[in-house]
């Protein structure tokens, strides 16, 4: 088990090496790439959001208890906010790299 902080470090390294292939001689860390990690997290998020939508529809038709609908919709909302925040972080990280003085 790799420690979370060094995992972030290796992901950052990989992200940097992906944008600057010239310095790819830097040790490439093993494990899934940042993009893969993000993609699988996004897939999970999509499932949660779809669950929230299905719950909302069932709530309107009255075939699901109210608190279950609320639970699912809140979970979907939170997941969406998480994904948006993570995307913003990723975008700002790439912008940070593009602003690097060469």
């Amino acid at each position, binding site marked *: 088990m790799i420690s979370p902080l060094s995992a972030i470090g290796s992901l950052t390294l990989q992200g940097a090496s992906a944008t600057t292939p010239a310095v790819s001689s830097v040790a490439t860390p093993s494990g899934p790439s940042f993009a893969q990690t993000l993609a699988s997290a996004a897939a999970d998020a999509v499932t949660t959001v779809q669950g929230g939508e299905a719950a909302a529809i069932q709530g309107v038709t009255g075939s699901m208890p109210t*608190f279950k609908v609320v*639970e699912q919709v809140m979970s979907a909302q939170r997941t969406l906010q998480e994904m948006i925040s993570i995307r913003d972080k990723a975008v700002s990280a790439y912008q940070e790299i593009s602003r690097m003085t060469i």
Partner: protein
Amino acid sequence: MIDPLQASLKISGAGLEAQSTRLRIISQNIANSQSTASVAGADPYARQTVSFDNVLDRASGLSLVRVKNVGVDAAPFKLEHDPGNPAADSDGYVKLPNVDVLVELTDMREANRTYEANLQVAKQSADLLNQTVALLKDA
């Protein structure tokens, strides 16, 4: 491993479900507090009772609450002398349900309070989760 705050949301959700079932049974009891039998001398509506049980959710390892069973109160029925009633027996007595509306109202108050307590837990957990996610924003 489930997130503890999401776990408390799930647990309080189970509590809400249990208490709303209890409230449903109470409303049945109150609504049927005057329901007599359709056949002469037969038993009227019997008061229903709810009992709760602690159940382990194996997928998440959480201790949830659920309605164990909906039973029937074995207390004797009230007798009322009303010879004109179609449900009256040969002596003119009608069996009325063993529902005491005062007891039901007290029970309803308790169910209400417990529901509110669970709701408060859900509110707090959701609030804390949202605040934690908000840490990611404009940091």
